[in-house]
């Protein structure tokens, strides 16, 4: 309504500067994104290129290492037919499935109790859970070595299944507490009046409503246990008990002979499951990490 009072030239300049400011912001944003992409995608691209080369081509230093002249799947085929590599893969799967199940059961129950059953010290306990997450595994593996050794689980995937949850449970619990806390109190009260007990309230109301959070926590537990490196390095010594992460680097290097093609192919195949999981559940993961904090 006051537009007529403003000289046309003034509004024009104003709009123009806004538009150019926005264009600038876009330029900067795109430039940063492209740089970030190059930095993050260069290693996997190099891995892919190398994995498609024969050993002869890799050791031939004359060509450009970023290009592949005669692509071949021989590295992949060899690995897939290698019982050792299949064993690593299988170990990783067993460990990860067990760890994800244990982590989710423990952290969902813990989060439900901490978020909803106001008992003495529940607040402190919730903070304590998060603090344990801040202790790095490089520090923890020394005392844990004693414990795992005492249980007779050294050099066993079951030892790993037992200790990985120390990495996953605190953070998963933390995500779930935030998520559960954002569920309005009247919802449990309505369920309580409708005749639900605590367990039904958890399974029929909380878990379905907090599903995005649960998926986010599951992905986190999956990633952590699939990619764990320090603990298996410390606790596992024989190839039959090794997960992919250490199997690939420790068994595909014989003395000082590096089977680069196979190492790269193995690493890429090892990275595949997380990539697939993220590709399908990315939206849930992001929603789960942010929604708990903001949804009223």
């Amino acid at each position, binding site marked *: 309504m006051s537009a007529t009072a403003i000289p046309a030239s003034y509004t024009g300049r104003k709009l123009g500067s806004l538009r150019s400011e926005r264009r600038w912001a876009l330029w900067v944003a795109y430039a940063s994104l492209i740089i970030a992409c190059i930095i993050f995608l260069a290693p996997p691209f190099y891995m892919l290129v190398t994995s498609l080369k024969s050993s002869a081509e890799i050791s031939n230093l004359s060509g450009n290492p970023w290009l592949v002249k005669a692509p071949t799947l021989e590295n992949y085929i060899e690995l897939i037919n290698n019982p050792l590599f299949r064993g690593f893969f299988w170990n990783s799967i067993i460990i990860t499935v067990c760890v994800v199940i244990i982590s989710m059961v423990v952290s969902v129950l813990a989060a439900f109790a901490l978020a909803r059953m106001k008992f003495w010290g529940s607040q402190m306990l919730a903070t304590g859970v998060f603090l344990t997450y801040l202790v790095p595994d490089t520090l923890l593996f020394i005392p844990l070595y004693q414990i795992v050794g005492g249980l007779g689980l050294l050099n066993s995937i079951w030892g790993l299944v037992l200790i990985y949850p120390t990495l996953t449970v605190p953070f998963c619990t933390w995500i779930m507490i935030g998520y559960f806390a954002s569920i*309005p109190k*009247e*919802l449990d*009260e*309505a*369920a*309580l*009046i*409708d*005749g*639900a007990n605590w367990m*039904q309230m958890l399974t*029929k*109301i909380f878990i*379905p*409503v907090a*599903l995005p959070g649960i998926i986010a926590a599951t992905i986190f537990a999956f990633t952590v246990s699939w990619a764990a490196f320090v603990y298996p390095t410390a606790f596992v010594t024989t190839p039959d008990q090794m997960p992919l992460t250490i199997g690939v680097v420790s068994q595909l290097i014989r003395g000082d002979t590096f089977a680069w093609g196979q190492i790269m192919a193995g690493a890429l195949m090892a990275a595949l499951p997380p990539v697939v999981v993220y590709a399908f559940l990315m939206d849930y993961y992001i929603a789960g990490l942010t929604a708990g904090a903001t949804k009223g």
Partner: protein
Amino acid sequence: MAQVHLRKIVKEYEGGVQAVKGIDLDIADHEFVVLVGPSGCGKSTTLRMIAGLEEISSGEIDIGGSIVNDVPPRDRDIAMVFQNYALYPHMTVYDNMAFGLMLRKFDKTEIKRRVENAAKILDIGMLLDRKPKALSGGQRQRVAMGRAIVRDPAVFLFDEPLSNLDAKLRVQMRTEIKKVHQTVKTTTIYVTHDQIEAMTLADRVVVMNHGNIEQVGPPQELYHHPRTRFVAGFIGSPSMNFMPAKLEGNGAALTLHLPDGIRLPIPAARTARYAPHAGKDVLFGIRPEHLTETRQTEHRANVAVFEAAPEVVEPMGMETLLHFWMQGHEICARFDPAVEVSPGQRVPMAVDMDQMHLIDPQTDLVL
């Protein structure tokens, strides 16, 4: 269906806050009782104690003939409607309504029958497959009521169910709630801070203040015979005017001396009632609707007239509100819109003295 009795109910929160200070209340079968009062007066706390969502510090609650103090909510045979509806977001409307019955192991056909019946009463049959996200505020409110109706409980509990709706929808849903109660006749306890909602819905209104019950009675009784200054001021909109006054005279004839030299004769029918207070300072209470233009009341007895100059004139359409100040007290009068008044203009005002109230400023009790 059931009666509800509250006996000396006290609620003390941690930290020693007494939210409810020992209230007694008897609610009859089929009755629609509304707890009303300003925010923080303990209405919700009372309702939640009846529901079993809040522990009772002391006293007894009796629903349908048995003491339920230690009975969990699910076994109290009550259903509750919350202000924010509290619908289960991941379930369809049908499942929201069926959930309570499913947990109670009703068989499928009975559940279907009840849900469809409730849907018919509430006119939400076409929404049964939707999720709450896809419903408007009014529709969510209906579903929340449906969830209560299907259970066919002994008592319905409502906690400010209309507060999240816009004004127009609120009026519409108010009528709806009344209609539903007339159909299902379930004993209902309804909490609101809105006295109009209370007056329009209730068989009996319970006015609460500071954790105590000020007065219990049918709407008309509260309107015409408030027992305390609080009830007099809380019930009615715009609220009652209070002016400091002195009661003068003897047993034969009493006169009220107001500020600005205004003298109002007390009707003969009230002299006996007020005579003991002659010579004392009192508060004179009169509702805006009983302080009107002179034309309307000319033919009536016991009408006193004085002049005042309104400072603010608010035409409302069906009435015009005039505001003036008498020794710092804002006074509101309700005029026929046909009477044209401009601010600052002195106009005669007729006081319907049969509708007056006198309040003892010491005790705040209506005399």
